[in-house]
């Protein structure tokens, strides 16, 4: 055999059989419609028509189709993550040119994944802070703002060595500076800090706080309302039957990552809790079907509709308006022990006049629970203007 000809045969066979195997597996493998991992609908079979050819949508669809339904897709993505970790890379899934810019995630110490925090170059946070700061004046009721820092802020000692991470204290300062009369800002940075408390208040694979973190937020909030906080012993803590792989994990699948336990509090007293979304009222605050799915955090209230009203007739205090993002959802099991009617408004999806809503429902207490990162990424200011 001539020099190197063995290698030459090998490469051509590698390419031929590689292509045949890849294409064959792609054709034969079952096609899923929805990817739980990515939380999105996968590309349907491309539609061939004169129009779809002319505007190029057929071509795009065909490329997406093979990308979305490639056989052993999750395993290949995991292998790719492993390759990059081996090269030394610690941040993944960044997309800096995107709007909002996406810093991706850090693979941190102790099996923890963290959001990469970037400074808000676009000034979205300042506008949101100003709008929240003038809410009280426009609504005529006081507002308590609870800004929630990210895991990467509270556990910075777990980030990769020298990893750049924007300091969210800046946003806290901005909020305080923009707070008008009747507005109170709650600083819970120390209470959630791993260094200060020795406790881990965040999921390892998700950007949300865990139920203990939510309890810390709850206790600070009700203290400010001069109410007595429910005790952890008032709840039974249950565990979802399957391991929890959160949203941060989805950004860079990696087979060796350990999952979280998804633990949620169920009040021991048999109060009759209801949640109302639009005209539909359901028993309880958990949507238990989500506990068996990937997106377990949505078990709290089933996600983020524009308006949800949670009622507990046996609770002592009256109504509470909660301007919020998903971080507030896991506080609800605790909060509904104090408030008999909680109106949760997700301003990202709410398109009515919020001040009208307050008047119509005779609400006297209001709080805003937002993760700082969310307020840097998405504008809610226009929804609060009058």
């Amino acid at each position, binding site marked *: 055999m001539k020099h190197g000809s*063995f*290698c030459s045969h090998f490469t051509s066979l*590698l390419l031929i059989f590689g292509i045949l195997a890849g294409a064959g597996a792609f054709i034969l493998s079952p096609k899923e419609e929805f990817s739980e991992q990515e939380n999105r609908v996968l590309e349907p079979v491309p539609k061939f028509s004169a129009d779809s050819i002319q505007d190029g949508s057929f071509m795009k669809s065909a490329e997406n189709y093979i990308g979305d339904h490639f056989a052993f897709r999750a395993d290949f993505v995991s292998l790719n993550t492993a390759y990059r970790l081996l090269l030394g890379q610690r941040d993944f899934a960044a997309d*800096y040119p995107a709007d909002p810019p996406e810093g991706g995630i850090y693979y941190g110490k102790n099996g923890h994944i963290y959001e990469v925090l970037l400074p808000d170059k676009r000034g979205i946070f300042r506008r949101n802070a100003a709008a929240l700061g003038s809410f009280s004046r426009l609504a005529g009721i006081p507002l308590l703002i609870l800004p929630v820092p990210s895991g990467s802020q509270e556990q910075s000692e777990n980030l990769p060595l020298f990893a*750049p991470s924007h300091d969210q204290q800046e946003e806290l300062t901005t909020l305080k500076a923009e707070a008008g009369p009747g507005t109170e800002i709650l600083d819970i940075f120390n209470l959630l800090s791993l260094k200060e408390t020795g406790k881990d208040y965040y999921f390892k694979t998700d950007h949300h706080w865990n139920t203990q973190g939510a309890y810390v937020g709850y206790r600070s909030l009700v203290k400010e309302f001069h109410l007595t906080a429910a005790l952890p012993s008032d709840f039974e803590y249950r565990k979802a039957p399957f391991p929890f792989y959160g949203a941060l994990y989805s950004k860079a699948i990696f087979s060796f990552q350990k999952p979280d336990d998804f633990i949620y509090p169920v009040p021991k007293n048999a109060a009759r809790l209801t949640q109302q979304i639009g005209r539909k009222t359901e028993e309880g605050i958990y949507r238990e079907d989500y506990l068996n799915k990937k997106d377990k955090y949505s078990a709290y209230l089933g996600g983020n509709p524009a308006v949800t009203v949670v009622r507990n007739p046996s609770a002592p205090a009256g109504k509470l308006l909660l301007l919020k993002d998903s971080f507030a959802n896991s506080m609800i099991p605790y909060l509904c022990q104090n408030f008999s009617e909680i109106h949760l408004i997700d301003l990202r999806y709410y398109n009515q006049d919020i001040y009208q809503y307050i008047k119509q429902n005779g609400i006297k207490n209001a709080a805003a629970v937002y993760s700082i990162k969310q307020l840097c990424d998405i504008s809610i200011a226009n929804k609060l203007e009058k």
Partner: protein
Amino acid sequence: MLFSSLFFIFIFLPVSLLVYYFVPKHLKNLCLLIFSLIFYAWGEPSYVFLMLFAIFFGFAAGKFINHSKTSCGKKRALILSICVDVGMLVFFKYSGLFSKTISGLTGLPDFLPPIALPIGISFYTFESISYVVDIYRGDSPAQNNLINFGTYLSFFPHLVSGPIIRYRDMEKQLVNHTVTKKKFEEGCRRFLLGLFKKVLLADQLSQLTEKVRWFDSPSSLSAWIGALAFTFQIYFDFSGYTDMAVGLGHMFGFTLPENFNFPYLSRSASEFWRRWHMTLGGWFRDYLYIPLGGNRCSRLKNVRNLAIVWVLTGLWHGASWNFALWGAYWGVLIIIEKLFFQKILEHIPKFFGWLYAFVAAVVGWVFFEYTDLNAAFRMIRAMFGFAPGIDRLGAYSLITGGLLLLIAAIGCSSFPAHVAEKLRRGGKAGQTVWCVGYGCLAVLSVSAMVGNAYSPFLYFRF
């Protein structure tokens, strides 16, 4: 459609190869032409008509030059066809830049709506020009077969980003291109090599460059890391793409010219450009520099010629003034070398010549990468000490990207090729190592392509 996409590798390539191998010989070029047009239409379907126009027009111009009896007639036809080619390029690629510049200078609103850039137009207009000039000069006869000419202009392996093929190098191959087993195997090897460079190195390096670019105002360390990462990224991206093009050419029985010859081993700016994007340099030399008089004229004229060639080379790379500046930068270096520096370079130790050429390339790439000149100068200032030495970004990038940069640096040298050759000739054990290595890299490449297609969509559905 990128060569490094799942769709190309697992659908387009096998289908086009199968059809191509099974059609009878006299239909092979037609088959190539059709697949090339599909490939071209894939990104922007309406521009396929532009491609068809370029084919018909170039073919007719060639015929016309061939049939003109007088030299004056030939010249007129040549000038007209060059004007049309250049006009197409200017209209589609540069009109936006002119309109923006004029509105910037005068304060008038932009008078042109943005035009999507037709893929590969910079390449096929240059190839079309090479065709008519070669015929005018009598270097090759005009093509009598429209399909053959169409295949030359639109052949999909070199359509999107070269190499730029001169007609005279392609003429004989258009009639005679048999695929041998050896050629096919060599094609597979080159294609995979290019794929590795693109998805395992260039795409990873781009994450380093993007990070440094986004954070802006860098420290010296992060500026160097960003600039070096881009230096390697663009090499692996472009040379990887050329490898894939050459490999594909082989699979279809063609031999396409080489474009890179270890450019970062150069010891002067002039040498760098004899090793970097060689087919573009060759095109400018043959069809612009020499017709302008080259260096066989007064020193002043020679400098003028170099200046013209280099500013145009810069602008050819993109419709933005930073590319013109980048071209001018190389022009200045090359003129200085021609005037006196070359003599000095020949007398200093080789290492310093290499260092000069390499740093010159790295600095040049900063102007290439940053369309915003202020940001480019911030980078340059930081690289040469006018910024804090180290910041978190720099330290972090060094820790997490140092190994990748090292691998990339080694990859730019001839060392890996030497090792691979040694292994291939090194008996059973060496060959096994080589094959296992190639197989692993191939699997990793597929995983990288799947990874690129994987896009979690998190913030809008909860």
